């Protein structure tokens, strides 16, 4: 009798059912939709929804299922073409106040999603989108870091009234030239105590008055890491704000960041993400002149500049800048404890802190203005040609009386809402990107190519599968049929695992699936050929069946393990699409081994195991 333990049977059945369950989400095709999010402080309400629907109806664009929530509006369409037309129409109408983002909305039913069922994530080459690889310029990050310590050294020496000649950046560190050896013997312990991030040593020669300050390597490494982390967080927040679905922003290696924006076909959107900066400038208010007069007459005092605040009122600020966004170390949003209004808490570096301290200690009772400057890159049509410019908005968000003396940590109020405070804090931090980034790799896949690729991939899969199935059934008869069932289970398992893992399917990944199909047959061919041999050698059919499986197993194992090595190598050393291929192959090998051996054995047991005396194996 061809035994098959009941528990194994149960296990196989359960696995197959689970596989079917987790493959199911793939049937629910996502629908093209638009996500509309407000820029700055607009609100998405019923009136707005009415406006959007009105625009769409006016252009006779068919839509369905409008959903409002989370301060966003989502509208679904029947296909991508309609989606694109709607996007154009809405962007024309809403202009800059809102962001209209293309999106693929999932249609997976709630209960399925709750247990983790999700469809395969499509890679960029199948969905269309943008892929960036950015290199963080660690050199300039390092320079900035060094500059900060230079100014800190200056401050500390001055505070203790130690005379110095210069502090310069050299290849070995920060070279401090003091006036005399006596100064040096005061300076070194001072710096060691007050600047723990620096290692200060005396430099021989140079009249005995030089010292070298080196930034501790842990500090440098930490700064490097935080540079990347900061950039990633900033980018992530920005991309989320733009309502791009499922962006991927990750660190790669020591100095790089990968950004993948699926469904975004417009590189200008990406430029906006990378290019926008916002910063604050703190300037004294010119108390001596009347801003309204200056605005109407055009006569602006020579030491001042005219700005407008958010209500459109003119404000005169002195040209001299007290502190700027470059000196910003951190910005967080919150609520001002005194007034209960939204505020942004700002922290400046020591240079900025110093300036602020100098100014506020001499100007209590006078007013200081905060200018918000935003630079957004854009492409406009000028005389029929496209011109790339920056659109700069400068707005005074706050001019308030200085109540007390402060240096590097203070709040800026005068913001309209918590949302604006959040956005400002975000943009401020973004404005102070710790280091500039260079794009070292960029791939843009148009949506039409994505669709073509999927179609081709599925076509190849179908045709290949059919050819193989027919051939195998003809050649190996009943065992062939069992093999085909095993293949079907194999595919089911493969797709279920890939879906549940959330692995990304790329075109090479589809090629991997097709290839897995071709090679999965191998294990069964080995078994079938073995069974034939055993029968020829004169063994009884059941013995032949058993021996076939037994003897083929060692070979199957060896052969598949070598495949595993190949896919591991591809995974370790490959990137992007190749990794997708490697994962598909790897999972495919495992599912093949399982289906080819266990599942087909089970079926054989069901067919032959029950008969009293098996006449022959149909192979």
């Amino acid at each position, binding site marked *: 009798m061809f035994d098959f333990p009941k528990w194994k049977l149960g296990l196989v059945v359960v696995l197959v059912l689970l596989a079917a369950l987790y493959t199911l989400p793939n049937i629910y095709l996502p629908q093209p939709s638009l996500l509309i999010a407000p820029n700055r402080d607009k609100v998405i309400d019923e009136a707005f929804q009415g406006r959007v629907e009105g625009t769409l109806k006016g252009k006779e664009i068919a839509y369905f299922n409008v959903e409002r929530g989370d301060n966003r509006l989502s509208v679904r369409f029947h296909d991508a073409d309609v989606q694109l037309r709607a996007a154009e129409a809405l962007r024309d109408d809403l202009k800059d106040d809102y962001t209209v983002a293309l999106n693929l909305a999932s249609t997976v039913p709630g209960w399925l999603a709750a247990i983790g069922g999700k469809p395969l994530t499509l890679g960029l080459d199948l969905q269309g989108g943008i892929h960036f690889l950015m290199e963080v310029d660690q050199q300039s990050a390092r320079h900035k870091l060094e500059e900060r310590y230079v100014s800190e050294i200056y401050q500390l020496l001055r505070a203790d009234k130690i005379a110095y000649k210069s502090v310069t950046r050299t290849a070995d560190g920060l070279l401090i030239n003091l006036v005399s050896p006596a100064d040096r013997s005061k300076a070194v312990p001072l710096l060691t105590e007050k600047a723990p991030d620096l290692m200060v040593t005396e430099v021989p020669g140079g009249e005995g008055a030089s010292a070298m300050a080196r930034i501790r390597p842990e500090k440098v490494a930490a700064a490097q890491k935080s540079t990347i982390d900061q950039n990633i967080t900033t980018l992530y927040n920005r991309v989320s704000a733009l309502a791009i679905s499922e962006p991927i922003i990750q660190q790669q290696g020591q100095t790089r960041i990968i950004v993948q924006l699926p469904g975004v076909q417009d590189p200008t959107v990406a430029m906006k993400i990378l290019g926008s900066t916002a910063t604050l400038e703190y300037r004294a208010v010119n108390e001596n002149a009347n801003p309204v007069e200056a605005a109407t007459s055009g006569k602006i005092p020579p030491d001042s500049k005219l700005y407008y605040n958010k209500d459109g009122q003119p404000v005169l600020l002195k040209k001299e800048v007290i502190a700027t966004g470059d000196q910003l170390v951190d910005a967080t949003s919150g609520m001002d404890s005194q007034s209960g209004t939204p505020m942004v808490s700002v922290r400046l570096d020591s240079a900025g802190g110093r300036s602020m301290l100098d100014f506020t200690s001499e100007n209590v009772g006078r007013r200081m203005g905060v200018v918000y400057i935003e630079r957004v890159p854009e492409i406009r049509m000028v005389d029929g040609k496209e011109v790339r410019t920056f659109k700069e908005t400068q707005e005074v968000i706050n001019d308030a009386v200085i109540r007390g003396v402060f240096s590097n940590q203070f709040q800026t109020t005068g913001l309209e809402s918590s949302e604006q405070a959040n956005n400002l804090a975000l943009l401020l931090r973004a404005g102070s990107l710790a280091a500039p980034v260079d794009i070292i790799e960029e791939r843009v896949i*148009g949506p039409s190519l994505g669709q073509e690729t999927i179609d081709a991939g599925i076509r190849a899969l179908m045709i290949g599968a059919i050819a193989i199935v027919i051939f195998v059934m003809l050649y190996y008869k009943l065992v062939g049929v069992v093999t085909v069932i095993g293949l079907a289970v194999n595919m089911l398992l493969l797709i279920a695992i890939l879906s549940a893992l959330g692995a990304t399917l790329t075109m090479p990944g589809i*090629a991997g699936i097709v290839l897995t199909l071709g090679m999965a047959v191998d294990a069964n061919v080995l078994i079938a050929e073995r069974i034939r*041999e055993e029968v020829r050698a004169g063994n009884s059919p059941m013995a032949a069946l058993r021996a076939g499986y037994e003897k083929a197993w060692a070979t199957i194992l060896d052969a598949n393990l070598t495949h595993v*090595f190949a896919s591991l190598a591809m995974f370790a050393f490959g990137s992007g699409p190749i990794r997708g291929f490697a994962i598909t192959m790897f999972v495919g090998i495992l599912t093949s081994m399982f289906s080819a051996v266990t599942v087909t054995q089970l079926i054989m047991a069901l067919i032959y195991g029950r008969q009293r005396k098996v006449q022959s194996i149909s192979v």
Partner: protein
Amino acid sequence: MELFNPNANIPFMRWRRISMSVSIVLLLVSLVLLFTRGLDLALDFTGGTLVEVESAEVLDTAKVRAAMEKVGFEGIAVQSIGGAREVAMRLPPTISGLSMREQQTQTAEEVRRALAAEGMVVIIKRSEFVGPQVGKELAEDGAVAVIFVLLTIMLYVALRFEWRFGLAGIAGEVHDIIITLGFLSAIGLSFDLTVLAGLLTVAGYSINDKVVVFDRVREIFRSARKLGAEETINKAINNTLSRTLITGITTFFALLSLYFFGGPVVEGFAITVIFGIVIGTLSSIFFCNPILLWMGVSKADLAQVKKEDPQLALLP
């Protein structure tokens, strides 16, 4: 259905001198091709920009080239792909006069505008920019991947079977890879990341074949009493011939389907693997085994220590 006579005993090893010579000639030809013509490396490895555009009307490549020259891209390779309305162009890795940052944000848009300026309205189907340093890294990683695969496989085979098999296996792998590369050089196939994946797949598949044969060789050595090395190997090959060819056929179906219906992205992959599998299968039979014979493999090398009789094992 049986395609092959199961009791055939084709004396493969008798022709080993001829088959080895053929192999060596192919190897030399491939090496010469690789060193002279070289591989047509795609921008994945060289760095540079690739832009594919599609227009509603027919695009004249000469006009496109002229338009690009007007904006400073001299001598660009412009190619018509898949019909006269689609054109692909490759721009070199560094465009002089532009900093890297300026360069990369402008490429596809630049192209579109340049063409629009000359009256050709196009949409960007696809654009890829690979910085030269990334390209270099991908190339290096690729080479390391291939070497890694070869070494681990060799180790595995040597452990599972015996060191001679390990050597024969690796020799076969190297043989397959070099000849496949030679083939790619000869047909001038653009060598990109998917083709590299194809090469690694070939490595995996071809060792698969060899292992099946080796496995059978080992089995026959252990079971048959008086067969010499040559007959053993012949028998092993004959026994596995059926399986080798059937698996080859089914994999072929899969690959042919990919080649004809899978679209341009996987074409290179499909060709590479098709060729690689053919060579791999042939080398399993005609290249590795002669090496085994030549190294003097024999029954003794594969003798199993009989565990059920510890007394015997102790006897001198």
